[in-house]
C-alpha cells in the first residue's frame, strides 16, 4: 500500500529501458571512434550488396557499409538529440519561469505566443529556421530546439504555477525572501523532476523529428549519416534493398522503446502524483 513492499530490484521497465539505452550509448561511443569500414567511403563496385559476411548489414546505393553508417549515425543522432534537448530545456525553462513569475498580462502574452508556436507545423518552423541558420547539424539543433521550447515552457510554467500554491513558497515569502530568490532557490530546483521526465521523452521525439525532417527532404545533410537520413534515403530502394530501411528503423524503434520504458520508470520514481498509480 505505501511502497514499503517494493523490491529493491529496479522495475522491469527501468531494466529493459536502461539496457537498451546503455547499448545505444555504447554504440554511439564506439561509432564515434571506430567503425568496421569508413562510413563515408563510396564504392561503386559494391552498390546495394545484400547483408553477408563482408558487409554484415549490407551496403547502400553508393556502396557504403550500412553497419558502419549505423554506428557513426548513432553518434551523430545521440549528439544532436542531447544538444537539442539541452537547448530546449534551457530556453523553455527560462521562458516558463519568467512567464510563471510575472503572471498577469505578461504571462498571457507569452503564452499566446507559446500556443501559436505550438500550433505551428514543425516543418514550417524548421524550414524557416534552417534557411536562416544554414542547413547543417547545428542549424537542425537550433531549429528543433526552438520547436520544442514551447512544450518545455508550458510544463515549467504549469509547475511554477502549482508550486506557487505550495506552502513552502508562502513560507519563503514570510521569511522575507524576495520573489527572485524564491524563484531560483525554491521553485527552480523543484522543476527538475518534471523536467527530467520531459527531457527523457523529448530525447525520443527529437530522434523522431530528425528522421521525419530527413524524410521530407530536410534534416541533417548527407553524406554524414544519421539514422533519420539513412531511413529516409532508403525509401526509393524499398523493393530492391530492404535492409537499407529495416536496420535504421529498427535502431530508432529500439532506442525509442528504451527511452519510453526508462521515461516510465523515471516518472514512477519522480512524479509523486503517478507514484500511487503504479
Amino acid at each position, binding site marked *: 500500500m505505501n511502497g514499503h513492499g517494493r523490491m529493491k530490484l529496479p522495475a522491469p521497465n527501468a531494466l529493459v529501458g536502461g539496457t537498451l539505452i546503455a547499448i545505444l550509448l555504447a554504440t554511439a561511443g564506439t561509432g564515434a571512434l571506430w567503425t568496421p569500414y569508413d562510413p563515408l567511403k563510396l564504392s561503386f563496385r559494391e552498390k546495394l550488396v545484400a547483408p553477408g559476411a563482408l558487409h554484415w548489414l549490407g551496403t547502400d546505393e553508393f556502396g557504403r557499409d550500412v553497419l558502419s553508417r549505423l554506428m557513426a549515425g548513432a553518434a551523430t543522432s545521440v549528439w544532436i538529440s542531447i544538444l537539442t534537448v539541452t537547448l530546449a530545456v534551457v530556453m523553455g525553462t527560462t521562458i516558463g519561469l519568467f512567464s510563471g513569475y510575472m503572471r498577469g498580462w505578461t504571462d498571457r502574452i507569452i503564452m499566446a505566443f507559446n500556443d501559436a508556436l505550438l500550433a505551428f507545423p514543425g516543418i514550417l518552423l524548421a524550414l524557416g529556421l534552417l534557411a536562416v541558420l544554414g542547413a547543417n547539424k547545428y542549424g537542425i539543433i537550433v531549429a528543433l530546439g526552438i520547436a520544442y521550447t514551447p512544450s518545455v515552457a508550458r510544463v515549467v510554467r504549469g509547475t511554477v504555477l502549482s508550486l506557487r500554491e505550495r*506552502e513552502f513558497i508562502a*513560507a519563503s515569502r514570510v521569511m522575507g525572501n524576495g520573489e527572485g530568490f524564491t524563484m531560483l532557490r525554491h521553485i527552480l530546483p523543484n522543476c527538475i523532476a518534471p523536467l527530467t521526465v520531459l527531457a527523457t521523452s523529448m530525447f525520443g521525439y527529437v530522434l523522431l523529428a530528425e528522421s521525419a525532417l530527413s524524410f521530407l527532404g530536410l534534416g541533417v545533410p548527407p553524406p554524414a549519416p544519421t539514422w533519420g537520413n539513412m531511413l529516409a534515403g532508403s525509401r526509393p530502394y524499398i523493393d530492391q534493398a530492404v535492409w537499407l530501411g529495416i536496420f535504421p528503423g529498427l535502431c530508432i524503434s529500439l532506442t525509442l522503446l528504451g527511452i519510453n520504458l526508462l521515461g516510465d520508470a523515471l516518472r514512477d520514481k519522480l512524479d509523486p502524483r503517478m507514484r500511487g498509480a503504479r
Partner: protein
Amino acid sequence: MSTKAFSSEVGTGSREENASNKATAPLLDVADLTLKLGASGRTLVNAVSFQVFPGEIVGIVGESGSGKTLAARAVMGFIPPAVRLTGGTIRFEGQDVMAMSGKDLRAMRGSRVGMVFQEPMTSLNPSMLIGRQLDEGLELHRKLDSGQRKALVLDMLRRVGIRDPEGALESYPHQFSGGMRQRIMLASVMLLKPALLLADEPTTALDAVVQRDVMELMVELTQANDTAVLLISHDLGMVARYCSRIVVMCQGDVVEQGTAEDILARPQHPYTRKLLAAMPQRLPARFLPEGGTPIVAVRDLVVDYPGRQGFFRKSAPKRALHGVSIDVKPGEVVAVVGGSGSGKTTLGQSIAGLVRPAGGEILFNGKPIAKSDTAYWDYRLNCQMVFQDPYSSLDPRMTIQQLVGEPLRLVEAMSAAQKKARVAEVLTEVGLGDGFGQRYPHELSGGQRQRVAIARAIVRRPSFVIADEPVSALDVTVRAQVLELFDELQKKHGFSCLFISHDLGVVEQVADRVIVMHEGRIVEEGPRDAIFDDPQHDYTRKLLSAVPGLESTGDGGVRLFWRRGEGEASA
C-alpha cells in the same frame, strides 16, 4: 434532531440495551485475523479478534498505521492485492467471509453489510446521477419494480434531510456540500437496511458543526433499522460518545477492548492511557500583564478575493474579511476559531503579508508597517508563520539544516558561525538534535516535519508567530507532543502568537484569549475561560455544542461531557 437526550454524561443509556444483546449470537465475529504485506511479509494486522452484536455500535480507535481500516474492510472481503490473509477467520451471520464465493460475497455486500467512507468528495461517483447511484443497490438486491424503488429512494432522501428529493435524483454529487453528500451516502447505504454498517471515519472530513449532525443522523437511522455499526475513528471522544464498546488498536494489534465506560474511566493498557492523555485539556489560565502596547494590532482589515476573470466580464470580487480588528499583546497566545469559510485563514495570511488587504492597516509595536521600509522590515523579520501541512510547507529539495537556516540569510548581524550555532541550538530545542540536519523532509515523519517548521519559524527569535492549524494534520499522540513543544517554546522565548484552529479542544489548551470568527467577521472575543464557559453569541454556542469536552478524572481516565448547545440555558 436526535431523539437521544443530551446529558452531561453520555453513553450509559445505549450501553444497557446492548448488554441484553450479548445473549444472542454475534452478528460479526472476527477471530485472530492476521494480514501481511505480500512482498515483505510485514504484519499489518496481527491476530485481531472482536465481535459485533446485532444493533450495537462498536468503535475501533487507533492512529494511522494501526491497521483499523484494513481490519474493517476485510470484513467485506476487501483486501488490497498486495496484502495476504495469513490467519484467522471473519464470520458474518455465521458464515466465513473469506471462504465465500464471489457471488455470495456480492450478495452479502450492500444487502447485509453497508459501508460509509471518510471522504465525501470521492465516495460518490462524480459522473453518475444521485438517483441512479441510490437505485443501483436496490435494483441489484431487491425484487422491486422501478416505481417502488423510486418511492423508497425518495422516502430515504427525505429522511436524511435532503430538501428537494425529486430534484436530487437528477443531480450530480458535486452539486451538494460535503455534509449533504455524506447524508446521501448514508441514504444509499441504509436503503437496503443492512445488518451491519461499516463507517470508516465518516465525519473526519467535515466541519465540526456538520460532524455532529451527520453522526446523529447515522445513529438514528441505524437504530431505526436495528443495524449494528462498526465505527472506525481516530477520534476517541467521538467514538466514546456513540459507541457501546471500543476496540483500541495500535500498530496492528488490539491492545485493549471493552465497554466505552471502562475504556474511558479505567484504561488498562499504556497506549490507551497515552491516547487519553493526549486529548487536549484546559490548563489553568495564565497571568499576563494588563495594558501595554499590543505587539501586533490589526485595524479594520478588509480583504477581497478577485472575482473570476471571464473573457467578457469580471465577476464581482468576493469579500473574505469585513473590517476585522484584533490586538495581540506581548507574550500572549490569541486563538482564532471558526468553521471553514469563516475567514480565519485569510486573516492569518493577510497579517503575514501573503494576502494584500483591500483596506485597514497593521501596526507593529504601534507603528504602521505600510508607512516606512524600516517598519516593514522590522515587522518582516519579527513575524513568522507555521503552516498547516508539514508535507507542503517544507521545500523537498533542501536539507533540514538548510531549511532551518534559511530565515537567517537576511539577518545581517550574525556571522556564518553564529548562524550555524543558532540552527543547531534551535534543532535541539525542537528535539531534532542528532543527525537530523543532513536529512531531507521526506525522510521525516509528519510530527518531525512540523517540528522542523516550528524550528524554522523561531530560528530568528521572532516576537510574533502565526500558527495556521499547526497540528490539525497530525495524529492524536503526535499532536499532543507538538502542542506541548509549542507551549514550552512559547514560554521560553515569550513570543506572541496568533493561533488559528478549527479544533476547539486544541484552542482550549493553548489559548490565552479566543476570537470567534464567522463569515469574515469577528462574532465574539474574550478570555478563554469566558468564551468556553459562558459563550454569548449563538454561533459560539453552536460551535461548542458540536464537540464533546473531556475532563481528566485524575487517575488516568477521563470523563466526557457535552458543552452547552444552541439555545440551551447555561448551567
